[in-house]
């Protein structure tokens, strides 16, 4: 393993992480909810009515964030190497898997770890390992 110092951005990574933590704290203290993105979005698709409004408001906030951000800082352009078919396969796995596993990087990886949940620790170890494995197989073994 060689560390990629050219792309390693420890300061902005830590500060961005703290902002994510702040958003978690806001949602918890202000309205009593866990900031797990897959759970928030998944709840919008569920037939159960009644608690959809706050989910819509949160998702709208996320969608608007790249329009707020440039007021403070230059907006970086995301680089998406994957083509359409790869994005479709990835999206299906992420959508289905995060609902079956009751969470994703935010709900398990941030909120769950912060409350020392054994389920979230297991989930985070599992999806990290699977992510490493997927990149190894796709990038290094198959070269795609």
């Amino acid at each position, binding site marked *: 393993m060689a560390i990629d110092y050219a792309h390693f951005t420890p300061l*902005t990574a830590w500060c961005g992480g703290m902002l*994510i933590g702040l958003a978690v704290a806001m949602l918890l203290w202000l309205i009593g909810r866990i900031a797990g993105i897959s759970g928030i979005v998944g709840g919008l698709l569920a037939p159960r009515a009644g608690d959809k*409004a706050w989910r819509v408001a949160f998702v709208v906030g996320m969608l608007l964030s790249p329009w707020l*951000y440039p007021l403070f800082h230059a907006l970086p352009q995301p680089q998406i190497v994957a083509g359409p078919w790869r994005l479709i396969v990835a999206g299906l796995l992420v*959508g289905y898997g995060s609902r079956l596993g009751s969470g994703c990087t935010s709900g398990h990886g941030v909120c769950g770890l912060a409350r020392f949940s054994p389920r979230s620790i297991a989930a985070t170890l599992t999806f990290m390992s699977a992510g490493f494995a997927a990149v190894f197989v796709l990038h290094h073994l198959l070269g795609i």
Partner: protein
Amino acid sequence: MTLIAALLSGLVFGCGLILAGMANPAKVLGFLDLAGRWDPSLVLVMGGAVTVALLAFARAKSGARALNGATLQIPQKRTLDRRLLLGSLLFGLGWGTAGFCPGPALVALGAGIPKAAIFVAAMLLGMLIFQFQQRD
């Protein structure tokens, strides 16, 4: 008040992802590529986020109420099961396939990036498939 709080939280969450570089799939894949040139940034993103979230949850005792009067909805389940592990496995495979997880995909969609729209549409379809399966 509830809706404004949720909107603000979403805005802060999204800005955090952008500042951290996590709204960029190439950077996430740089972290997941242990065998290549490894970018450890994501470890620090999680470190910063968990540190702040720790303080938030430490003060949130069960039975406490949020500012809007709602009871805190904190998951109570602590046992591992097959669904949790299989779901996390599939999620991780998808995450490593394109470098997108749900939050960054929403941010990139908001920025108007067509490829993010493809990913989000497939992600919603995956969630719907899960949901229809649950009804049987």
